[in-house]
């Protein structure tokens, strides 16, 4: 994968808080590397998008994201449930999921790791830290980490 390919990569952000979404996108877009960020405002919309249901029924399967950034406290369907559905769906379970949340609660950590989360990040309050963490973790999963290819062996 070359750097030029990066603009074709898609990251989806499932986040209800407008400010957090804004700041996350600002942090990711800053290096001008990843442009295709889809922001989905709650758990239900997130699942609709991923499972191509409702208004996302016509979405092309080839445009599956390469990373899912997931908040836990979401309206309608919460983040843990979204994670469970992703990890129990054969076509989605290989997509890395990074939970980005304010919660440091052990209960949440345990639940997410039991469901097979790939990373769990507590959002730092200081923006510069937040921006750095968001950038680093996204680049790591998109660039550094090696995933199995989509083609059969």
């Amino acid at each position, binding site marked *: 994968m070359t750097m030029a390919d990066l603009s074709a990569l898609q990251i989806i952000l499932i986040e209800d808080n407008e400010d957090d979404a*804004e700041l996350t996108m*600002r942090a990711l877009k800053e290096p001008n590397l990843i442009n295709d960020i889809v922001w989905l405002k709650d758990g239900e919309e997130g699942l609709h998008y991923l499972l191509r249901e409702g208004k996302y029924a016509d979405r092309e399967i080839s445009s599956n994201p390469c990373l899912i950034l997931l908040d836990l406290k979401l309206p309608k369907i919460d983040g843990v449930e979204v994670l469970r559905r992703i990890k129990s769906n054969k076509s989605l379970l290989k997509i890395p999921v990074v939970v980005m949340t*304010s*919660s440091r609660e052990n209960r949440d950590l345990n639940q997410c790791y039991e469901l097979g989360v790939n990373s769990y990040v507590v*959002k730092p309050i200081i*923006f510069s830290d937040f*921006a750095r963490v968001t950038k680093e973790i996204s680049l790591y999963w998109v660039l550094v980490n090696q995933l199995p290819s989509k083609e059969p062996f």
Partner: protein
Amino acid sequence: MVISNIRTCTGMKNQFHFLFVGLIIILGLFSWFVLNDFQNQGFIGEGIEMCTIPASTPESLTVVSYFSTLFTTSNWPARWTCGEWSETEGWMYIGSDISIFISYFVISLMLLGNVFKLKLGKAMWIVLLFGAFILLCGLTHLIDAVIFWEPVYRLSGFTKLLTGVVSIGTTVVLVYILPMAPKYKSPEIIEKEVHLERISKMARIGNWELDLSTNRVTWSSMVYEIHEMAQGMQIELDRALDYYHPDSRGIISEAVEKCIKEGQPWDLELRIITVLGNKRWVRAIGAPIQNGDKIIKLAGLFQDIDERKRAQIKVQNSEKELIKKVEERTKLLKRANEELEAFSYSVSHDLRAPLRAINGYSEALMEDNKGEFNESALKYLNRISSNSQKMGALIDDLLEFSRMNRKQTSFVEVDMNQQINQLIQNYFIGSKEIIEVDELPKAYGDRELLDQVFMNLISNAIKYSSKEEEPKIRISAVEEGNHVILAINDNGVGFNMNYADKLFQVFQRLHSDSEFEGTGIGLALCERIISMHGGEIWAESEEGVGSTFYVKLKK
């Protein structure tokens, strides 16, 4: 026991002496009569005329002349002289009479001798009468023997009259008392009964018996009393069971049935309703009485346990109430705890997001408009940013503080030496030069929690001595009995001891933020952790000289 036995023996001996002497006297008198006659007349009336009357009978006999001549022999012949007595026949007659006399005499004396010693009560008079009757019978036989030589027929007649009167009297008394004999109670038995009665009254315990052939129940007086019923009323089994409270009736009926069928005894605490309608707790005990294999009767005890039982029930009820109250409180506490948990959970989520936004946007503003903003605008934006950071730290500390209450602890032996040196290595490497750590002993506690305490105290020491020219921190410890006292000393600004009590309270600070930054939670957290350990934490300080914080833990 032994002493009383010896006494009885000596009593018996005395009696026999008495009998023996009496017998000797009587037989002596008898011999004297006989020998006297021998001298006068020889054996079998030689020298006296056969069957002749020595003097003529007086024509009239008055009471006075009768008794004044009670011993007269002049009106009758001696028996030897009348009729044809062979020697053998005569001596047989005499011998038999004398042996009858001796036996009667001994029997009567034994009766009379004992009658005062045994506690017979009214029965004593009957025994006395019997004794007199037997004694008199004996006397008539003795006189019969004497008459062979001395014809004291008048004395004989009088003795027989007395004997007759006493015999009739005895007979009448016997006819009268014999039917009552089976019910006779000696004073000893009566005394025992009184004693039992007293015990029964004190313990409020009575006994009962059920005759299975008649189905009739016999109660002792206490059982009647417990039922508040007139003494002596006839009671059938069914009626006796009817006095039980409806709650208890089934239980007692079953127990009685089981006892009759299987011989199984019972011991139950039940309630009755007395004749006067009072509810009363009783202890009912019953067991079978067998004749061979067959159960013929049931017998048992019946005790009034109302007072004790009521007290017991009261205690039980108050215990139950207490348990219920504790459960209610626990429930409330649990709910409060759950609410607190939910609260801190939502705080951790919801309070951070806006802070992040404030911080994020102010930094974004600064980044995007660096050239356009004037100095004061940039300064204010910086203030906004740093305040939001501070609030973030405050939220983090508060959350940590509230989480402490819900934390599961595991107490182990903690090597403070290793633990504290490790902490310094990991977190305070920059200040390593100014920290001197003595050899520290082991303490007992939760590793993670104690780490937090040590972290807080060391970082405080570093913070408050940071303005000194040569900051110096010393960590030492002393052992005191079962405890270890850890001391963390610094040569920093110190504080006024007047405010020492505020030191460990949440949000209480002794220095302004411009002097030393802080959230006012660290020491409160330390205090809570140490009190969870059953230990103590305190501080000593002098302004401008330094402070020492002490932590007392179990070894």
